[in-house]
């Protein structure tokens, strides 16, 4: 596979393009982020947004919150820098891990915030995970659509126009590009562009229902983006903090660890310690990463090391060693996942095979497993 000569991202990476010298667009826009964007001016823009919303509505803002490093930092920053009164909104995808839950409780208590947590119907979740896996090779549809639409419903219900997200997508992909020098708006067109896999909640309802049953449309409301007119009437603003201050996950993770006692965790298939701040929120992260490996020939180790290479915190050789050692192993959670979906590994492989991104060709015969994480036995099992 063709790879970026600087960071090593392969050609199967979403939205990737290469310059004549073989450097990828993500590396190029990273330089733009550091050198061209006027971050002082961006910060002033953000100050104005805060000033326009403070004290005027039921809450100063909505903060969609997973409890991972980015949303925790965002909440911390908004409280410390601006002393806001936010409403924290958490969409529970069904796989929250114990360390994350402990982190969340600590963060909420230390910062003193109001929190709403919503957990959707598990029986629907299982069905849409299966459907999204079959159609797109990506079972996370319920989580991604829920995370991005549910807080917007809460913004409407609580008459709070400002919704503040954390990390902008420009850190990882070029659906939006730092070089456009525009503020990435977290709206329905972004949702349709790459969050919902091209499947609306209404589509999904039609896809998962059997001929003999009529599924309740209300079960799909949490995954449905609210009506644009309602949001516009609220004069909503939905933006990422990372569009206004330069995002630095590593430094921010250290800060929340020091200031809030936030703890990292093991993640299946990831090197221990070095990236223990990343994607600790989901028991199924290992499965997601493994599917990505089968489809695209790289996984989260690559995604993490490219950030370090771009930030000149790691040399490529070191990254390659980590990638060789950790990437592509089967996560123990795969067995539990297949139990949820009621299929065996052969069926799973057959589904994933159809969504492989050429020119990558996966090797399904490898039977190399990554170790169980400490909390593996906490996982909910369908068969007790």
């Amino acid at each position, binding site marked *: 596979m063709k790879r970026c000569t600087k960071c090593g991202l392969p050609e199967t990476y979403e939205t990737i393009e290469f310059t004549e010298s073989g450097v990828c667009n993500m590396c190029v826009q990273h330089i733009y982020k550091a050198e061209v964007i006027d971050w002082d001016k961006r910060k002033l823009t953000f100050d104005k947004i805060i000033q326009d919303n403070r004290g005027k509505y039921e809450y100063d803002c909505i903060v969609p919150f997973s409890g991972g490093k980015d949303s925790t930092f965002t909440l911390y920053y908004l409280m410390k820098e601006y002393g806001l009164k936010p409403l924290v909104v958490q969409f529970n995808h069904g796989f929250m891990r114990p360390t994350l839950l402990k982190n969340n409780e600590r963060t909420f208590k230390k910062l003193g915030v109001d929190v709403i947590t919503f957990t959707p119907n598990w029986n629907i979740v299982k069905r849409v995970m299966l459907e999204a896996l079959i159609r797109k090779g990506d079972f996370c549809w319920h989580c991604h659509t829920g995370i991005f639409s549910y807080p917007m419903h809460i913004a409407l219900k609580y008459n709070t126009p400002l919704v503040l997200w954390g990390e902008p997508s420009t850190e990882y992909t070029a659906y939006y590009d730092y070089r456009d020098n525009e503020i990435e708006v977290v709206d329905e*067109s972004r949702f349709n562009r790459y969050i919902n896999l091209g499947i609306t909640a209404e589509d999904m309802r039609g896809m998962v229902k059997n001929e003999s049953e009529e599924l309740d449309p209300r079960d799909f409301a949490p995954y449905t983006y609210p009506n*644009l*007119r*309602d949001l*516009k*009437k*609220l*004069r909503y603003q939905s933006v990422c903090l990372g569009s206004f201050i330069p995002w630095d996950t590593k430094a921010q993770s250290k800060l929340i660890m020091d200031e809030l006692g936030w703890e990292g965790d093991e993640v299946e298939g990831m090197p221990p310690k070095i990236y223990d701040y990343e994607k600790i929120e989901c028991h199924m992260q290992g499965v997601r990463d493994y599917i990505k490996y089968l489809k695209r020939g790289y996984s989260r180790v690559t995604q993490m090391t490219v950030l370090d290479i771009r930030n000149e915190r790691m040399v490529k050789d070191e990254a390659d060693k980590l990638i060789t050692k950790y990437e592509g192993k089967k996560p123990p959670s795969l067995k539990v996942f297949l139990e949820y979906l009621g299929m065996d590994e052969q069926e799973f492989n057959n589904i994933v095979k159809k969504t492989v991104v050429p020119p990558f060709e996966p090797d399904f015969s490898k039977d190399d497993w990554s170790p169980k994480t400490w909390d593996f036995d906490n996982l909910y099992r369908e068969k007790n």
Partner: protein
Amino acid sequence: MSIGIIDVGIGNIGSVSNALYSQGWDPVLVSSTKDFKYLTHLIIPGVGSYSAAMRLLLDAGLATAIIDFVSQGKPTLGICLGMQLLSFIGYEGAKTEGLRLIDGEVMPLKKIKGLNLPHVGWNEVTYKREHPVLSGIKSGLDFYFVNSFFFNARNHNDVIACTDYGQSFPSIIGMNNIIGVQFHPEKSQINGLRMLDNFCLWDGVC
């Protein structure tokens, strides 16, 4: 905000009204002078002929009401023919006096070989200066046009943007609390909708 749309039966009222509605506004249709009472913003849409449209505005007593509204410093937007009516004189149909709000004449686009008239379709709008109604919309983007005539502004300062169709012509004009666009923002997708939204949020100060 109370956004009024002039309705004397000259065209694209429905599409302008729907576009505003989609952006969270509740526009009201204005067909008599008493409808002006609570308006904060006024939109003069229009498809059709300059002389016929002016006649309708005069007959309904709306020409004076519009001029009076503008004189109060309230934001006013002319779209397509509605923009052209802001001028002093128009030559479509017959030589006709306009609302005389921005100095200029409305003339036919030159006939140029290979370029059909009317000028129909998407074309680039290049800014000459900044304006609050253009906030967050980059210069050089495409908007949807349908026109055979153009606003030949007397003062360069009143020209906010230009478009090229064999000849450069003003596609956005403005003075104080008035702005006029030759294209149809209500048919220009996301950038047009943003422009209408910006107008509704504008306080009329440049």
